[in-house]
């Protein structure tokens, strides 16, 4: 099994990527503006529901229950999907999912070269890098979600789970369309841009015979796949083509049709600040004379079953990809999504990518957080992201401690030394004395500057008050000897 998540293998460490992005004022302005708007809309739509916390509890419990019985619900889904006329395929990892999709596309295009497919916005197909795999064998995928189309045309990567082109503003989109659609006179008003996209996409919808989607939910009881969206382009892809292929992560299954009642309230309010998504599409198998004539579901593992085995990590599988944690995160707000080196960015990305890949290519991500808890506060399915970040940091340190190189890295040495100091009153007080006596080396007028080693990262941006000549505990000792109390 070869678990891959987007292009993480080639991505730089978070702090390195973040530093570069922090220098892009336009991008940061775009991210600030967009996240401020979505956060405000979400807050409005959450406040108006008196039972919001109960809904979160219900969602969290439904997900926890499903994950405990995942194997049974997946089989139930498979059974009911097949009974309704669908075909179900199982993929262990990204390569297997892409190979199945390519095989199906070839089968349904009768071996003709130059097949084309239209795509519904889907994070899971980005996770397995399906577009790259399709292009490699001569199949052309067209993203039809407006933002995903922009990202694809720009040769860029999504920077947000729900709003993939959040890092771009409309002037940048206009310039892109002018070149890619040969429209040199195009304006930057929203209706100019959507008109141009509509003209371009309508031709694809009418001509291309194979559609590919992800899924927001897969209902075990009925074998139904559900996708919610704002534009209607997803519904075009799900209804107009002859063939529909849905790539579904195994954690997307929910037991009952009625469970949608909970999630279809939580998801739109959390994701886009809407009471309801403009388009809620649900499809079950195939129906003569209506919609696709062939329907395939590819159920994807790609590291998920390993997550399922760990009690702490299992909770992450409850994620419904609403992106609320990204919009709430003060770190994401400053860097945007590309700093995370993965299509899953923000707080959820910082826990999801490392778990899926068993910590490979993503060891800096669990440290890309101040543990401020804003993500946990807004999560509609109550994933305790800060706690999971700490858990993953523990896994990374435990791995480090197994090798000499890991044991001797700067952080490890500093943390072990401090642990020793904190374990003894004598050593603690001696260290305090050492600080008081040695700090003159770095002191300028009562403040410490240009400290060495890791502390230098502190003084790169901030001043630090020098330690006072008498520490609190020294003052207290003296006072205690003299009888103490208020004079």
């Amino acid at each position, binding site marked *: 099994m070869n678990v891959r998540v987007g292009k993480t293998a080639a991505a730089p460490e978070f702090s390195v990527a973040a530093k570069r992005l922090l220098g892009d004022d336009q991008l940061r302005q775009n991210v600030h503006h967009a996240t401020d708007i979505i956060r405000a809309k979400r807050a409005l739509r959450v406040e108006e529901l008196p039972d919001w916390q109960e809904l979160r509890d219900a969602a969290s419990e439904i997900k926890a229950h499903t994950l405990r019985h995942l194997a049974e619900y997946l089989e139930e889904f498979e059974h009911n999907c097949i009974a309704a006329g669908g075909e179900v395929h199982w993929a262990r990892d990204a390569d297997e999912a892409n190979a199945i999709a390519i095989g199906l596309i070839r089968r349904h295009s009768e071996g003709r070269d130059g097949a084309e497919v239209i795509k519904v916005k889907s994070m899971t197909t980005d996770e397995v890098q399906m577009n790259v795999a399709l292009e490699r064998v001569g199949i052309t995928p067209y993203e039809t979600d407006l933002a995903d189309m922009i990202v694809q045309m720009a040769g860029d990567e999504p920077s947000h789970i729900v709003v993939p082109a959040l890092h771009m503003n409309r002037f940048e989109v206009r310039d892109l369309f002018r070149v890619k659609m040969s429209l040199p006179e195009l304006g930057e008003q929203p209706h100019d841009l959507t008109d141009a996209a509509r003209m371009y996409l309508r031709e694809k919808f009418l001509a291309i015979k194979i559609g590919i989607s992800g899924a927001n939910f897969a209902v075990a009881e009925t074998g139904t796949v559900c996708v919610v969206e704002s534009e209607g382009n997803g519904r075009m892809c799900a209804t107009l083509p002859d063939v529909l292929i849905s790539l579904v992560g195994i954690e997307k299954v929910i037991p009952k049709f009625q469970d949608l009642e909970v999630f279809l309230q939580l998801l739109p309010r959390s994701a886009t600040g809407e009471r309801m998504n403009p388009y809620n599409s649900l499809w079950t198998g195939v129906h003569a004379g209506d919609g696709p004539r062939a329907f395939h579901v590819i159920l994807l593992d790609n590291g998920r079953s390993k997550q399922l085995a760990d009690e702490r990590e299992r909770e992450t599988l409850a994620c419904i990809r609403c992106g609320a944690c990204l919009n709430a995160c003060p770190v994401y707000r400053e860097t945007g999504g590309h700093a995370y080196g993965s299509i899953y960015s923000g707080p959820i990305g910082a826990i999801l990518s490392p778990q899926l890949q068993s910590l490979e290519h993503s060891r800096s991500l669990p440290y890309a957080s101040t543990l*401020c808890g804003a993500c946990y506060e807004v999560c509609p399915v109550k994933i305790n992201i800060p706690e999971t970040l700490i858990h993953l940091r523990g896994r990374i340190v435990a791995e480090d401690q197994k090798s000499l190189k890991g044991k001797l890295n700067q952080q490890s040495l500093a943390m072990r030394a401090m642990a020793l100091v904190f374990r003894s009153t004598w050593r603690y007080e001696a260290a305090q004395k050492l600080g008081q006596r040695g700090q003159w080396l770095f002191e300028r007028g009562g403040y410490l500057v240009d400290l060495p080693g890791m502390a230098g990262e502190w003084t790169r941006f901030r001043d630090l008050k020098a330690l006072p000549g008498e520490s609190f505990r020294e003052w207290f000792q003296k006072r205690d000897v003299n009888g103490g109390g208020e004079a």
Partner: protein
Amino acid sequence: MRVLERLGHRVLFPRAQTCCGQMHYNTGYQADALPLVQRFVKIFRDKEVVCVPSASCVAMMREHYELIAERSGNHDFLCQVRTLLPRVFEFSELLANKLGVLDVGAHFEKRVTYHPSCHSLRMLHAGDAPERLLRSVRGLDLVNLPEREQCCGFGGTFAVKNADVSNAMMQAKCGAVKLTGADVVTALDNSCLMQIFGGLHRAGQDVRTMHIAEILASHGGAAS
């Protein structure tokens, strides 16, 4: 300490105390945190009430001490943790909630803004208790901090591991402080205040940072 004594309480400072273990625990050195937790519990388990002038240390205790004790497999230790935790209070929590005191007789003639630290806000659910304490201080002009619930960017080792992002968050916080025109920024956590002070001082801003206890201990009008 002065505030609690002024209210008639006897305050002890056990010299053997060092660190609650949060830094090690949150950075992933959970094995190194255990002896620090054991040390804390041993020192404080026979005390009537434990006052901790740091919301994030209290959050560490409430969120993780039981789990750490459970994982240690020592049942007696777990029982000790369970009986100690209900007696541990953050400073403002102790005053406003446990002792029911808002006016501690302080006098401080400054314009002050309050930064609700993430751990006090989202883990201790401190609510408006700190502000009610500050409003009861004579002469104190409390001004609202814009975007107050945004993290200051400290985050423990985050401040050095991701110094550039931490700096960007700090700049936003310092900008908000500047907008208030306050003389003093206060909070329940010295760690946030160290970050905010570091940024303000580097930028040449003449704004002081004071822990809420320092303000509540003042009775001379100006900062002591």
